[in-house]
């Protein structure tokens, strides 16, 4: 029983210990304001990482998410600033385009039996390219609604607040947990990641599920793009470069196996917080180069992957003999 949640427990322990260490060094760390900022700063990453978790659970990968975020911000800026669209219609259009883009990649992967790595790599180039076609410059978004949405927040005593992006992320994470464990779609994802052929022989609609999971990942990348544009107040085709790797890192640190079939959405969320924690610590310290973030995350990633491998070996070997009749 404990085995299954061990990667999750270890990740959580790292987060708690890390947080306590930071708080011990900088007393100001343990405040609602810091936590609130951490959530806001990482909101777009978190939303994207949820989609990535689903894709990886199903045995795939989606390298296009960063590019889709960048493209979405440009699309929004162009529609609102140059096309005169109301932001809400622009949001709807952006979500539809991003979701459709993901669905198309999923369809290619399923119909032509192509490796997801290649297809989404191509998708990444296409999405970045399309962003540049729309505009090569950073376009500021000045619509009043943007300012309003930017101010929207749940405020707490002591200066802490949960901004709209943070709230959106928390909502997405909660919905994703329900989706993963209490819906047939969720069960089908795990099935697909476990063994595609077996899933098919058990009646899982493999094609539909594949298309749906990439569509979902695209959609969430689109939502992350909206959040990113709210956060930065601009649209830029080079925005969010490398985000696909940051999200994959969060997923892996969160205990999800890259080969699919094992893992938890909540683990990804914790993985994301660990990354955010390291970043915040380095900002607090002030003397460390921001590259230390990368190094710390790199080391952490390595350790977690070793841990997973070890656990899996123990567990698929003679790790615990279940009660059998």
């Amino acid at each position: 029983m404990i085995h299954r949640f061990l990667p999750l427990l270890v990740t959580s322990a790292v987060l708690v210990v890390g947080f306590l260490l930071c708080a011990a060094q900088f007393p100001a760390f343990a405040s609602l304001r810091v936590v609130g900022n951490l959530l806001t700063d990482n909101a777009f990453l978190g939303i994207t990482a949820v989609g990535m978790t689903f894709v990886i659970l199903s045995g795939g990968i989606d390298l296009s998410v960063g590019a889709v975020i960048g493209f979405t911000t440009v699309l929004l800026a162009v529609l609102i600033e140059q096309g005169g669209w109301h932001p809400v219609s622009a949001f709807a259009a952006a979500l539809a385009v991003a979701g459709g883009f993901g669905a198309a990649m999923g369809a290619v992967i399923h119909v032509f039996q192509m490796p997801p790595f290649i297809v989404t790599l191509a998708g990444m180039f296409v999405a970045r390219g399309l962003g540049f076609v729309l505009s090569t410059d950073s376009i500021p978004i000045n619509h009043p609604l943007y300012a309003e949405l930017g101010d929207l927040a749940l405020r707490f005593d002591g200066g802490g607040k949960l901004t709209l992006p943070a709230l959106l992320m928390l909502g997405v994470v909660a919905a994703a947990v329900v989706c993963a464990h209490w819906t047939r779609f969720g069960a089908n994802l795990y099935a697909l990641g476990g063994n595609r052929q077996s899933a098919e022989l058990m009646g899982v609609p493999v094609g539909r599920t594949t298309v749906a999971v990439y569509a979902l990942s695209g959609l969430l990348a689109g939502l992350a793009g909206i959040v990113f544009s709210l956060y930065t107040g601009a649209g830029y085709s080079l925005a969010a470069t490398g985000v696909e790797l940051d999200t994959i890192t969060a997923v892996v640190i969160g205990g999800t196996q890259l080969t699919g079939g094992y893992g938890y959405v909540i683990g990804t969320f914790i993985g994301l917080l660990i990354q955010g924690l390291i970043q915040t610590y380095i900002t607090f310290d002030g003397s460390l180069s921001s590259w230390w973030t990368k190094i710390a995350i790199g080391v952490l990633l390595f350790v977690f992957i070793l841990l997973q491998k070890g656990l899996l070996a123990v567990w698929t070997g003679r790790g615990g003999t279940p009660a059998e009749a």
Partner: protein
Amino acid sequence: MTDPTPTASSPLLAVRGLSKAFLGVQALDGVDFTVRHGEIHALLGENGAGKSTLIKTLTGVYQRDAGTVTLEGRTIAPRGVEEAQRLHIGTVYQEVNLLPNLSVAENLFLGRQPMRFGMRFGLVDRGAMRRRARAVLIPYGLTLDVTAPLGRFSVATQQIVAIARAVDMSAKVLILDEPTASLDAQEVAVLFKVMRTLRSRGIGIVFVTHFLDQVYALCDRITVLRNGRLVGERRTAELPRLDLVAMMLGRELEAAAHRIAPPVDDAEEDARPPLVRFRGYGKARSVEPFDLAIRPGEVVGLAGLLGSGRTETARLVFGMDRADRGEAAVDGQAVRLRGPRDAIRLGFGFCPEDRKKEGIVGALSVRENIILALQARQGWLRPIPRRRQEEIADRFIRLLDIRTPHAEQPIQLLSGGNQQKALLARWLATEPRLLILDEPTRGIDVGAHAEIIRLIERLCADGMALLVVSSELEEIVAYSRRVVVLRDRRHVAELRGGEVAVDRIVAAIASESVPVEPRP
């Protein structure tokens, strides 16, 4: 659940003229197959006969090329497993078809989870799923943690979960494709009890197995396939085992050949010390423990239906699979065979059945293929000089009459028979003391066939010991001094001297299983 009303007139499931081809292989050719209400119907045939393909074409895993399928008089054409399941056809496919990463309960209910707040957009009722999962497993005597990942349980338990899932979905038809392969006797008994209960409820059961005892213990009717064609359908009670085996093998028993090799004095022969001797040698889920002794200059044949454990026996002897019980001795000295390298060091050679996959290296020349095993034994750090390689290759090309323009010809350009001879040469070059041949004459023309048999006889006259697996009974009879007959992964008989004859082999394959006394 619908209540199937048994009507004598209309069959439950009727397959007519079903055909299915894969790139170049006609896996099914106009097959008819009928399942009635409340019967257990054995679908039999050797490996590759098309049983699994018939099942998969029926349930929508494959799309058929031609033919019709009716279920209770209505034409059906499921386009996928899901649709077949909705038609109340539950199937356990031959491949392990469950998910090790999901819990037992999730495996049992994948795709049909109990829901709350509406079927379509509701949520999975995990509590109800756990409770129902426990209930579903009760008839099988399994009480386990249904929330644990399935991969943590033994293969047998996983197999039972797969069966329980299919049974739970099969309100009309249950199809089991070799479900008993990894079950022990007690688990098989439980499965049979469940199958009988379902039969009494009017469900039609299709049962694929290699175990003839199971067929006669359980099944009402038998359909036999061979090479993708229907051989016939019989009532079990009216089909003696011998006739069944003849149907599966496709051979007329009257034409049984008798041995050509002169009988030898058994007592004198048996007094000679064996080159290799195995006692109680076996491997769980592969071959039951067996005793086997082979003397220098002796050919021992391994006969049995495909899948009866012949190749597995050969692989154990060569150390390709590791035995988990019993002992082996060479020249009276106990040895351990931990891999082919050990076997090669002891002077064993092995020509595998599938020479394309395990034998020849197509792009290399005939010479390179021939010296491969010798070079491997010497170690790659001590290359055999080119001159010597050429000598060896030329000698064997002459000796075995390998038809090739020259020794440098890529081996893939040779005919099957000549490839087989080159493969044989590879092992002969190592001067083995025991040579194992798995289907040495498969897929080669008649002329080469005779030559290989002559060669086998000559080798054994030179004092080499041979262990030969073959489906060609006449051939085995022609060169073997002794024949070990296998059935259901067990050595069931050893024929020697005058006993070596095709009809005796067929009779042994078809015999009821009675524990055989291992010979001293």
